[in-house]
């Protein structure tokens, strides 16, 4: 109410704006930190305690007995886990690299600022808006051995897919999952890098051109270094999301055939929600949480060191 303000003004002299904020900022922050803290601490504590227990929900609704580090040992020893780790690393590294390369190329095309490119940019983002699980539906249709469009195209260009189907063969399943992810997320990378390219000052490009820099030099020596920060954020987001891949695998292959497309995320889901082995799933949760935290730590160090937020 204005009258409050008037009274307050009359009552005391106002100090400089930054002074006397007291506990207000912390009070504003506290609800979100408390809620999130609880929502995060509970699962982590749950997983930690149960990772040292034998507990299968199909056998007992309550934890059964302490087993020390057996769950961790069993997971680290199991070939399935190692395969899942390897698949996840391959998917993550290849996916990030391909999406970045392709996305950067598209960003350069878009940044030519020719008429119509902004409409192309607006439409291009559409795959990224779709839920990953729905992308999974879409690609199961595309890959269907009996009449999928991708299968038809492969036949037409003389690269017949394996008889078991793209998702049914251990040779092509992981690449097919990767392809669906690349399809969904390359536009995301392209559009963010394009925004980065727009922020490169025209004078810098003009100066380089006057100095006789080739297009190629401009891209590698000027544009890419100048959008380093944006590029790092994109790479970080894609790397972490790929590392956590789960929905896409659930719909496309359920980790199969065999263990060919098992990712860490999907293995964990299967261990907990299909086999109901809470003890082992909890141990695996912690192994994954530690790995993810290492990656996040490295990315944050590179991307945000010395930067105000």
């Amino acid at each position, binding site marked *: 109410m204005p009258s409050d303000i008037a009274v307050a003004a009359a009552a005391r002299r106002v100090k400089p704006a930054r002074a006397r904020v007291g506990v207000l*900022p912390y009070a504003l922050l506290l609800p979100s*930190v408390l809620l999130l803290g609880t929502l995060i601490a*509970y699962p982590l504590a749950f997983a930690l305690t149960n990772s040292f227990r034998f507990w299968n929900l199909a056998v007992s609704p309550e934890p059964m007995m302490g087993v020390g580090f057996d769950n961790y040992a069993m997971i680290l020893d199991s070939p399935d886990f190692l395969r899942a780790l390897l698949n996840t690393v391959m998917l993550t590294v290849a996916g990030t690299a391909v999406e970045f390369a392709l996305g950067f190329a598209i960003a350069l095309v878009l940044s030519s600022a020719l008429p119509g490119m902004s409409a192309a940019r607006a439409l291009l983002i559409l795959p990224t808006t779709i*839920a990953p699980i729905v992308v999974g539906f879409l*690609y199961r249709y595309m890959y269907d051995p009996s009449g999928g469009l991708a299968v*038809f195209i492969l036949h037409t260009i003389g690269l017949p897919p394996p008889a078991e189907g793209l998702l049914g063969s251990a040779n092509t399943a992981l690449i097919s999952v990767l392809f669906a992810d690349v399809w969904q997320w390359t*536009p995301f990378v392209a559009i963010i890098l394009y925004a980065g390219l727009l922020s490169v000052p025209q004078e810098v490009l003009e100066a380089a051109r006057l100095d006789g820099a080739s297009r190629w030099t401009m891209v590698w020596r000027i544009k890419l270094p100048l959008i380093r920060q944006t590029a790092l954020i994109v790479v970080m987001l894609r790397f972490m999301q790929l590392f956590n891949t789960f929905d896409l695998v659930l719909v496309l292959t359920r980790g199969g055939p065999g263990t060919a497309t098992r990712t860490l995320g999907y293995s964990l889901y299967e261990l*907990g929600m299909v086999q109901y082995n809470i003890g082992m799933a909890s141990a695996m949760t912690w192994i994954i949480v530690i790995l993810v935290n290492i990656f996040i730590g490295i990315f*944050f160090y590179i991307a945000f060191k010395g930067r105000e937020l």
Partner: protein
Amino acid sequence: MVGENTALTRALLYGCALLALAFFIGPIFWFVLLAIRPPDTAFAMPPVLFFEPTLAAFRHTLVNPGVNAPQAVNSLVVALCTVLLNLPFSVPAAYALSRFPIRAKKHIMLWYLGLLMAPPVAFLIPYFVLATQIGLAGSYLMMVLVMQTLTIPFSVWLMKSFIDEVPVELEEAARIDGARWHQVMLRVTLPIVRPGIIVTSMFAFVFAWNNTAFPLVLSSRSTATLPVGTLGYFATAGVTWNYIAAAAVIAMIPPMVIFLVFDRYVVRGLTFGSVKG
């Protein structure tokens, strides 16, 4: 740039752009066609491009028997409640982080960001067991609550980027007039960043609408969201692809509309405000 493009480079650039559009939009188009084509043409080889379109699949999914209609409503309820619950937590936090010299501010910001990159499956199993034990399995409440782990960090980052843009001078003017901080926040800053709140809510809605991991284990048959419900078609004998496509198309529409309408803010939304579009 434009000036020095020769006709050849222009043609090349347009060629690349068209190729990219065909590659990225083509499959969506093909999937939409699946929803409106006669079932016997769904897997025809060679593919059939021209056919008598039919809305039979949409009638089946939405009206009779309409199994997916309540699921679409569930998706809407969960996503809307998630966004509404998230605002009173995230907006004040974003304001505090934008305006005050908070200790360990950077660590707090990175903590939020780290949560957005956390593996969802790591939380699923504990939440599933907890929900069962406290009788919230299959409830909207549980889904809405756990989705806050995504929407609050997202909204804090995005809202902060909007509040950062409001000149501090406006607030200082109000301060000099004697307003107290909470009055400044509520009566000066928040009204100015109302567009930012709308944009944030819209993208948070997409986040929640598209989230499948949590509803997958926390919903029941009657609270299943649209993507989770659509998964059910794979469990029945003889996959009914036209129905899957129809349900999937319905699931695709709200995010697409929001992204196209808020086109200007897409880059900012996708990077949580860390890259200005």
